[in-house]
């Protein structure tokens, strides 16, 4: 399948406005036009179509782009002065996926930088001296797990982290983003992800958490930021991943959820949108694309055969969109051709690409030996189902479908925080892999 090499002219797959023009259809058609231009060299409409195998992920340029800010960031990044841990995470995770070995001299700086951002009352703020926030705490924990050394793990004060997470936990099961902050589903995911990695999950922390997320599932089937609010892929991933960490994905209405998720792939573009009747964006390769591995697990639990499913979306189409439309010639990845690159989009376009290349599946047969947070260790690649569009060198490192750091970094962190219990599970998983 895919979107570049289809029977009919690309335009045939574009949006049908039924002869009635509105703002939404106008934006959509304009976007399609710019994407068609990016696709053109590879399509049948071109006088000399390039083979899809020529689609290349320009890894070196992306590494260069990502590294470009680590020693000196331009004044325009002042806007991210309260998002420093995010910058660290986006940079490190992108490098990690690209297979760039993070050198010791950078690791030392990450550790020191985040040490200064940790709040004395627990959790991480947006920068030194700032109040702790659940999202920046998530990013900081992930960034330190990517560094993956004892010095990095030791930065995190687990006792105060627990206090901080409990201080934002609400009776109805939701989390505020900070003390006095807004409630939304991002809080649930960020809090539970950080707590799972560092092994500080308690019944108090998880009480009613699944019920709150279930209330955020809308009539469309996806999940909104708060009960009643429109279904949105960013919140849907967060809600779903949080439910997976809670072991409670069964609480969702599966039929509408599956349909809504599958409906987010754009017919002509191949990439994903985040909401109904909105535009494609490269970052949804992760937020929407990230739904599918967990959804695959849910469908398997409900008795479906993963063979038939193969992720329920068109993997070629998504990868073609990312490779042909989201790469900047000078490095970095972007939302769509009309937008400029940034570290956020680079991180999430690559995360989505990795998830699309490596089909991750859950080792149901081992779930009894991996209770609670340990079940995160049961995600392994279904190697037969690997699919790398374009040049074989496009293959990225494997990211964890729930925690979004490399699978090997998840293992390492769990060995540190869960000790022997994690070791036993990993051993069993590896035996299973060899046995199959």
């Amino acid at each position, binding site marked *: 399948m895919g979107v570049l090499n289809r029977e009919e002219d690309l335009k045939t797959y574009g949006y049908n406005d039924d002869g009635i023009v*509105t703002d939404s259809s106008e934006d959509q058609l304009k976007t399609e036009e710019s994407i068609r231009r990016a696709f053109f060299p590879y399509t049948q409409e071109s006088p000399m179509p390039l083979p899809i195998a020529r689609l290349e992920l320009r890894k070196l340029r992306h590494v260069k782009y990502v590294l470009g800010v680590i020693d000196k960031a331009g004044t325009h*990044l002042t806007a991210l002065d309260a998002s420093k841990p995010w910058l660290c995470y986006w940079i490190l995770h992108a490098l990690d996926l690209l297979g760039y070995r993070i050198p010791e001299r950078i690791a030392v700086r990450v550790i020191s930088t985040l040490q200064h951002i940790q709040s004395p009352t627990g959790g991480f703020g947006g920068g*030194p001296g700032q109040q702790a926030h659940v999202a920046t705490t998530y990013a900081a924990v992930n960034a330190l797990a990517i560094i993956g050394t004892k010095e990095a793990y030791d930065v995190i004060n687990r006792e105060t982290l627990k206090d901080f997470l409990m201080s934002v936990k*609400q009776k109805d099961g939701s989390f*505020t983003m900070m003390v006095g*902050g807004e409630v939304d589903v991002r809080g649930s995911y960020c809090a539970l992800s950080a707590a799972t990695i560092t092994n500080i999950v308690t019944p108090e922390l998880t009480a009613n958490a699944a019920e709150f997320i279930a209330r955020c599932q809308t009539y469309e089937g996806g999940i909104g930021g708060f009960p009643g*609010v429109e279904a949105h892929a960013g919140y849907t991933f967060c809600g779903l991943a949080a439910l997976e960490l809670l072991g409670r994905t069964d609480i969702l209405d599966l039929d509408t959820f599956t349909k809504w998720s599958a409906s987010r792939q754009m017919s002509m573009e191949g990439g994903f949108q985040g909401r109904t009747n909105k535009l494609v964006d490269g970052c949804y390769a992760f937020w929407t694309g990230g739904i599918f591995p967990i959804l695959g697990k849910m469908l398997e639990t409900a008795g*479906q055969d993963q063979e038939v499913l193969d992720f*329920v*979306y068109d993997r070629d189409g998504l990868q073609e969109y990312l490779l042909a439309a989201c790469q900047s010639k000078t490095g970095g990845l972007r939302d769509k051709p009309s937008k400029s690159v940034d570290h956020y989009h680079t991180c999430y376009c690559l995360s989505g690409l990795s998830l699309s290349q490596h089909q991750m599946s859950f080792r149901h047969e081992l779930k009894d030996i991996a209770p609670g947070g340990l079940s995160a260790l049961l995600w392994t690649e279904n190697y037969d189902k690997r699919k790398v569009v374009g040049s074989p060198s496009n293959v990225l490192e494997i990211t964890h479908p729930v925690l979004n750091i490399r699978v090997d970094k998840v293992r390492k962190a769990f060995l540190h925080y869960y000790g022997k219990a994690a070791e036993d599970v990993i051993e069993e998983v590896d035996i299973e892999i060899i046995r199959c």
Partner: protein
Amino acid sequence: MAEQKDDVPFYQKPEWADVVPIPQDDGPNPLVPIAYTQEYSTTMGYFRAMCRAQEKSERALDLTKIVIELIPSHFTVWYYRQQLLKELNKDLKTELEWIEWMVEEHPKSYQIWHHRQVIVGRIAQSLFPSTTTTSSSTPSTAQSAEAAFVFDDLSESQKTTVQDLVKSELEFIAEALKDDTKNYHAWSYRQWVLAHFGQGPWWTGELAYTEELLEKDMRNNSAWNQRYFVVTNGFGGLTEEDVQREVQFAKSRIEKTPSNESPWVYLTGILRKGNHSVTEIKEFCEGLLSVPRANFSPFVHATLLDIYEVEAKEQRSAASVEKAKEEAIMLAEKVDSIRSKYWNWRKTQLLKIDVAA
């Protein structure tokens, strides 16, 4: 910056002479050191000094505004400002005017919209302290679906006060939605306003508002979602009369734009919520097949697949399964090939139906 009356930066003024700014402690050789402007680093130095001392003063309040205007995503500053407004017992109406201006500049800031909610929540609480049901509500639980009052229990004059406040909030949000009809923060806050003040007459107006927006752009899914929110949460929930009216409403939009996903999801969503079977719109969908541009809409076929699947499960006949299967094939191969995996999976589900001999 409306506050500054002259060109002298605040820190050169005598009232700041006693404050020693605190430099940012990044540690040695931080990752991603940002090239701050001089103005930014100096201002933040003073902010850190205020914050560390937790000074509760007018100058601290003025400073939070300066910092926020430099970096509206700085959540620590907002929280500090919220505490200052309370401690100094400031006029919250003035605060609302400033937020209005800030929203225009930064319509997608989580912090600004949340601040609005905190402030309006406080105003609501202060209106008639004895009647509030959530008097213990702290800022951290301010975003609650729970209403602040039982509207019907209020006196006539109290009702007017509440109605005026809600009206001005809804107008303010409508203004922001004019620039971006799908602004997620604006919609989120709008739902909070509607619910926070209980079951008042504004719910009726809200239905008309969604209709007005859908008149302009019937593909505005945020407006459809809002409509669903209104009919299922307002007026004591979804009645049979609502279902009938909304089904008609969605159908009439589908007839105009059959390839528009929003009214389709709305239609099936309302039916499900009202405990109606999707088979009730069978005739409607089949009718669309004879409309030239509608018969290629994936949503017509997707809904027919849902309908035929339900029928096949009831009838358990080979013919009924076949009928549903044809729709799945049509979707996978012709009208919605990007989702062929999904439709093929739906097809395999049909094969599991136990056909009676």
